[in-house]
């Protein structure tokens, strides 16, 4: 058989690794077998490739109020700059399959790219005179796309915040209180009323099925397994809020012994969508990838992972095992069941793990930082859903993205910036005050003198005087 026939066979089959031209970046390697997610057509143009990038990443850029939107580079007046750095296309800076040229954040351009357009910055900002190009993107200074926690007035506004904000706490989840407003929530079939084991609506056939309620322990019967599951469910938030057996197991009509995340997503749509956007669930994002990929086994993670769960596939149940759906387990134990890196292993000895570190929830967990509580407003504020961001990668691209969504709930901005800039401290899971100092707030105060912000309120104040 000729080489062409072999390649053709691979192209049409599942194992396309032979076609991967170079190691895929950390952000994309999980989906590298979904070649057409990015390479949408044979001999696709750069614009085709760009459309694929935007298909997955445009929403995140919009949410970050992208500091360098494509429109800056399509503007004819910047044609000379675009000739130097063609940022109309993501791949100009984030080329894929080029491991030798790839550095942090999947960047494949030399680190001095800021200088191409901002070489004269010290004329405008004398405080920047003499800065090396390597300092531009230091945590706490600038981010090419997301400066929502780094712009000068924000720095000034938070310049005086203490290292630890007294009473700092993450907001409380509120799904039960807003479920009635969520269009997809089956409120008619499952009213928000507490249920007991006597109310369980699982059919008799399911109660005897080992598949739906695996026997607990050697020699235990399926019925015993069902009883154990029933007790767990009865104590769960699901039972407390009227979510009966069929809500998850028969949402599509027929009884399903092992509901997938489609079942979870029927009610928890935002959480499921976030999960599919992050590295835990990106393989399940069939809408974006155009193909169904099996969930990632733990062993395929590039971060250090424990051996025992290596063959486990990551899905909702990995962190939220039925039927307890214990969010306390999901917030720490589930993470540490797989993650085996120094940062994770150091968590138990971190001040974050101490009781009282979160004034409301009790302590800061892995999820507190990596799956933050975010507010989503519906119908222009008619109701606000405080939900858990299930895209745990969102705050890590880069880490200073966590400042607004997480850190400043409990810490001052300056402390947060310094802590995130201290790589060794991050590795030890923040077991001491920051050893690094980023002078961004100092520079802003030096230049502006005070925390006065610029608004048209000036005119209003003038009118009032």
């Amino acid at each position, binding site marked *: 058989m000729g080489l062409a026939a072999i390649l053709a066979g691979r192209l049409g089959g599942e194992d396309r690794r032979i076609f991967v031209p170079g190691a895929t970046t950390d952000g994309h390697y999980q989906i590298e077998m979904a070649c057409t997610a990015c390479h949408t057509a044979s001999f696709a143009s750069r614009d085709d490739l760009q459309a694929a990038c935007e298909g997955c990443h445009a929403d995140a850029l919009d949410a970050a109020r992208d500091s360098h939107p*494509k*429109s800056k580079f399509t503007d004819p007046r910047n*044609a000379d700059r675009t000739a130097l750095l063609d940022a109309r296309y993501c791949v100009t800076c984030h080329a894929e399959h080029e491991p030798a040229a790839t550095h942090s954040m999947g960047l494949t351009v030399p680190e001095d790219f800021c200088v191409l357009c901002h070489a004269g910055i010290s004329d*405008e900002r004398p405080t920047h005179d003499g800065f090396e190009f390597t300092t531009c993107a230091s945590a706490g200074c600038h981010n090419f796309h997301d400066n929502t926690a780094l712009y000068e007035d924000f720095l000034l506004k938070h310049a005086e915040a203490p290292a630890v904000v007294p009473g700092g706490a993450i907001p409380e989840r509120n799904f039960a209180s807003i479920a009635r407003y969520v269009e997809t929530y089956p409120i008619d079939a499952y009213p928000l009323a507490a249920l007991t084991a006597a109310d369980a609506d699982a059919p008799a056939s399911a109660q005897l099925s080992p598949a739906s309620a695996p026997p607990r322990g050697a020699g235990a019967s399926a019925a015993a397994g069902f009883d154990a599951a029933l007790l767990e469910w009865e104590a769960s938030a699901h039972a407390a809020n009227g979510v009966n057996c069929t809500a998850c197991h028969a949402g599509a009509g027929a009884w399903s012994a092992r509901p997938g995340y489609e079942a979870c997503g029927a009610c928890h749509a935002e959480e499921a969508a976030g999960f599919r956007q992050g590295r835990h669930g990106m393989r399940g994002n069939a809408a974006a990838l155009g193909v169904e990929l099996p969930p990632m086994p733990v062993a395929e993670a590039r971060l250090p992972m424990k051996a025992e769960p290596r063959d486990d596939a990551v899905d909702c149940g990995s962190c939220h095992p039925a039927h307890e759906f214990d969010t306390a387990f999901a917030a720490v134990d589930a993470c540490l069941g797989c993650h085996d890196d120094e940062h994770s292993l150091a968590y138990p000895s971190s001040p974050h793990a101490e009781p009282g570190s979160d004034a409301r929830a009790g302590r800061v967990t892995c999820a507190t930082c990596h799956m933050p509580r975010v507010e989503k407003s519906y119908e222009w504020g008619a109701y606000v859903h405080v939900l858990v961001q299930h895209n745990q990668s969102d705050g890590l691209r880069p880490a200073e993205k966590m400042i607004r969504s997480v850190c400043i709930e409990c810490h001052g901005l300056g402390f947060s910036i310094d802590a995130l800039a201290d790589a060794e401290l991050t590795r030890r899971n923040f077991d001491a005050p920051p050893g690094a100092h980023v002078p961004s707030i100092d520079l802003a105060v030096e230049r502006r003198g005070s925390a006065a*912000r*610029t*608004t048209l*309120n000036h005119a209003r104040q003038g009118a*009032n005087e």
Partner: protein
Amino acid sequence: MKRPHMKRPAIAAAGLCAAAAGASFLASADAGDEPVFSPKQLADMLHLVMESDRTVYTRVIVNRLTLQDKVITASEHFEDDQALALPAQMFRFGSEMVASKSEDFSYSLQSEWAVNRQNMPRTDAEKTGLAYIAENPGERYYTEEELGGVTYFTAVYPDVAVAPACVSCHNEHPDSPRRDFEIGDVMGGVVIRIPLE
């Protein structure tokens, strides 16, 4: 995307675009595919819409709510401050939305005294045009220029301080390089570009 229907302008020796045929009423659907407007006319019409919308937003929204009714402020950081977007920001957002949808024309707000230095004139046409409209109140500047291998019809229109908010914000902003603006002053210019085929 199709180019707008237009006649290529006659270019005078001085580089200014000579006015072409006047606008005519399109009597049929077929006529809708016929070139009618010169790039200059097209730019003038685009600017009329931009200037009008911008003035209405400044007066009816920003001035009324911040100065007259005093129910809200307007702020550069309008999301964080739960305030109104500044008129210049509204203009820029529209420009960015157009840029995301079409390459048939582009526009920007620039000034020799821009708060954001990135909005100071960069090309020769911008520098010449902004200086011209500042020195010749009420006049516009038209020219052609080549950028990135593409020839553009470029029009520069004066952007005048129409409200106290325009003046006070620019006179008080810590990054503003000029702080003596008065109502009626030319504070900058709107630059519209149309690629010529």
